[in-house]
C-alpha cells in the first residue's frame, strides 16, 4: 500500500478506457472524460490501447497475459497518472501485473502499477475532492455494489463518500454486500451455473431494497447483473459511479 500512497497525481492524465467501454459502454468513458475536464484535468487517450490482459491472466495463461501487459505498459509509458473507470482493470495494473512478473520484475510494469488510479479513488484521494457538488431533482435511491477488485483499495470508500455527498442521493445498504456478483470474467463462462446463481442471489438482495439505480465502479459487474436481470424479466437501471457524478452536475 505504501507504493499506492506515492502514486502521482496532477492535472494531466492518461485515460485507460477499458475494453468494456470500448465495446459496450462508451458513455462511461465519456463521463470519465467530462468529469475530469470539469475538474480542470486534461485527458489524453493513447490510441493504441486495447485491454489490460485480465482474461488471459485469470485463466492462468500468463504467457499470453504478460504479452498483453507489456503492450499496455508500453502504450501508457511516461510519468503521467493512468486513470481507469474500472476497479478491476486498475487492480490488474497495480496488483495482477506485479504478481505475474514477480519472478522477472519489469520496470515498465512497475511504473504502470505505480501510476494507476481507479477513477473514483483518483478524484477523492488523488485530487482531494471530498464532496461532489451534484444534485438530483428528487430523492434517488442508490444501491451501491462495491466491486470485488476494490477490496483493500481506496475506491470503495471514495465512491461511497462521493455518492453520498450528491444532494438527494440516498445510498441504501443491502444484504450480504460483501458477496461477489458472480461475474469474474472467464469464471462466468467456465462456471455458468455457479456464476448465474451468485448473480441471482446478488440481484435478490439488491432488488429487495427497491433502488432507483444500481451503481458500481465496474461495468463488468453491472453487465453481468443486468444481463441476468433482463433474462429474468426484472431489469434494473444501472450506471457507473462516474456517470452519477456527471449526470448530477448542474
Amino acid at each position: 500500500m505504501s507504493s499506492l500512497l506515492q502514486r502521482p497525481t496532477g492535472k494531466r492524465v492518461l485515460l485507460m478506457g477499458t475494453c468494456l467501454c470500448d465495446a459496450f459502454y462508451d458513455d462511461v468513458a465519456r463521463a470519465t472524460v467530462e468529469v475530469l475536464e470539469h475538474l480542470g484535468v486534461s485527458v489524453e487517450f493513447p490510441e493504441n490501447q486495447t485491454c489490460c490482459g485480465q482474461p488471459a491472466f485469470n485463466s492462468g495463461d500468463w504467457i499470453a497475459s504478460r504479452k498483453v501487459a507489456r503492450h499496455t505498459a508500453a502504450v501508457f509509458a511516461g510519468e503521467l497518472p493512468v486513470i481507469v473507470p474500472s476497479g478491476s482493470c486498475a487492480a490488474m495494473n497495480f496488483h495482477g501485473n506485479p504478481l505475474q512478473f514477480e519472478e522477472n520484475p519489469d520496470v515498465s510494469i512497475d511504473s504502470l502499477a505505480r501510476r494507476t488510479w481507479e477513477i473514483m479513488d483518483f478524484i477523492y484521494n488523488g485530487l482531494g475532492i471530498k464532496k461532489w457538488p451534484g444534485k438530483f431533482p428528487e430523492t434517488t435511491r442508490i444501491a451501491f455494489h462495491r466491486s470485488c477488485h476494490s477490496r483493500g483499495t481506496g475506491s470503495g470508500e471514495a465512491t461511497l463518500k462521493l455518492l453520498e455527498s450528491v444532494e438527494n442521493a440516498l445510498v441504501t445498504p443491502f444484504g450480504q454486500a460483501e458477496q461477489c456478483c458472480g461475474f469474474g470474467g472467464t469464471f462466468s463462462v467456465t462456471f455458468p451455473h455457479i456464476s448465474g446463481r451468485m448473480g441471482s442471489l446478488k440481484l435478490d438482495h439488491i432488488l429487495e431494497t427497491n433502488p432507483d439505480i444500481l451503481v458500481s465502479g465496474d461495468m463488468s459487474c453491472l453487465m453481468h447483473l443486468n444481463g441476468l436481470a433482463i433474462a429474468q424479466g426484472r431489469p434494473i437501471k444501472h450506471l457507473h459511479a462516474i456517470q452519477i457524478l456527471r449526470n448530477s452536475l448542474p
Partner: protein
Amino acid sequence: MIGIQPIDQYARDISDEKQHSVIDGSAAGTDKRYYVLHKDYPDPDALRKLAAAIKDHTLHHLGDYLAKAEKSLTQRGVHVHYAATDEDARQTILTILRQHNVAQLTKSKSMAAEEIHLNPFLIDNGVECLESDLGEFIIQLDGDEPSHIVKPIIHKNRRDIAKTFLREGICSDYNDDPGTITRRARVHLRAKYMEAQAGITGANFVCADTGRLVLATNEGNSRFGMAPVPLHIALVGIEKIIPEEKDLAVFLNLLGRSATGQQLTVYTEFINGPRSANQPDGPEHMHVVFMDNGRTDVLASNCKEILRCIRCGACQNVCPVYRQASGHAYRSTYGGPVGAVLSPILFGSRFPELADLPKASSLCGACNEVCPVDIPIPDLLLRLRDKAKRESIPSAGAIPMSPFATLATSPSLWRTAMTMSKAMNHLPIQVAPIKPLQDWLGQRTLPESHGGDFRKWLKNRKEVRS
C-alpha cells in the same frame, strides 16, 4: 476442452435442501464473525496482519522451532514421533496403540486425522475408533465426509440426523429436536469415553518455547475423551508451531472469532505432558506425532503462505462458490478457498486431478478479507492456475487465450474488431457453435455493442475543438 467443470456440476446437481443448509449456515457464520470482530476491535486488520507476520516468521524458521518444540516436549516426558507421509503417521499411531493394548478409543475432531483417513485405517486394524465431536460422530455413522472445517455437517438438517440415529440404534424412536439429538449423543458417547483406553486429538497450536499443545473445542469432547484414559496421542501438522506462548493471545483471539464468532471456544486446553501425580484423571502417557505429509513441499512452493492457515473456516463461510457447491465439491479433506489452494499441492500426486479447484473462484477476494492470518488466497489461486497451464493440464470449458493476446497486442486489428462487433447486434449470436457462449447467453442478455463509439466521439470532439 469441452465439458463441465466438476465444481460447477456439483452446484448444478446439488439438492435444494442441501444447498439451503450450506448457504444459511455459512452466511450466519460470516455475519457473526464480522459483528464480533468489529465490536471488539477498532482495527481487526492490524491483528490479522500481526498474526500473519508471526506465522511467516515461524515458517521461515520452521526447523529451529520444530526442534525446540520437540525438546520442550521430550523434557516433560512426552514421546515425540515424526511422520513424513500419511502412511508413516498411520503406522506410527497403530504401533503406539498396540504397545498399549488399545482395543477401543475416542477421537476428537482433527483435520490432520481426516487428511490421512485415520479412522477407517484403525478400524480395519481392529481398533474401535469413535468420533466424539457431535458433527463428526454423525458423519461417521453415515459413512459420509465432513463438508466444512468447523461445521462438518453443515450440509445436513435435523431430519437427516434423526433418521440416522434411529437407523443406527442410538435411540428407539424418531425425534428431530436438536436438543434431544444432542442429549442422545451425550448419553451414548460418555459411555464410550469410559470404556475407551486411549484418546486421539489434533492440536490447534504448539508453542515451541514450552511445548504446550492447544486444543480448542466447544463441546468438551476432547477433554472428556482424555479424562478417563491412560493414553493420549496427538497428531499434529508441522505447521502448527508458534514461537512463544505469549503469541497465543493473538491467535486465540482470532481463532474463535473467525470460526464461530466467539471470543474463545468454550474449552481451550493447554497440554504439555502426562497428568500430574496428584491428579486422578487424565493420561499417564502422552505421544505427539508431528506429520509432514506434503507440508514441506508446500513450504518449498510459491504458495507457502497457505501454511499460515489456522483452520477457522471463515474463508469457507464467506466464499460464494463454496456456498453454491458445498464442501464435498472440493473432493478432498479441505473444502472452500483454503482447500482450493491446499489440496492440489498438499497431495502433490493428485495435482492433475485437483487442478480444477483453483479455477473455481471469481477471485472476489472475500476469503482474503476474512482470513485471520491474511493469506492472499486469490494470488495463490492464480499462481496455481499458471502452474496448471504450464503443466498443460486440460481444463473443462477453458477458452484459448492466444488469439486474445494477438488481438490485444495489435492496436489496428483491435480497433477494427471493436467497430465490427457492432455487426453482432444484428446477428443471432446465440446460434454460434460455442458451447460456453450458449450456456452463458442462456441465462444472460448481452448489452448492445457500441464498439468504437467512444473513440469516434473523442475524435469528433477534438476536430470540433481544433
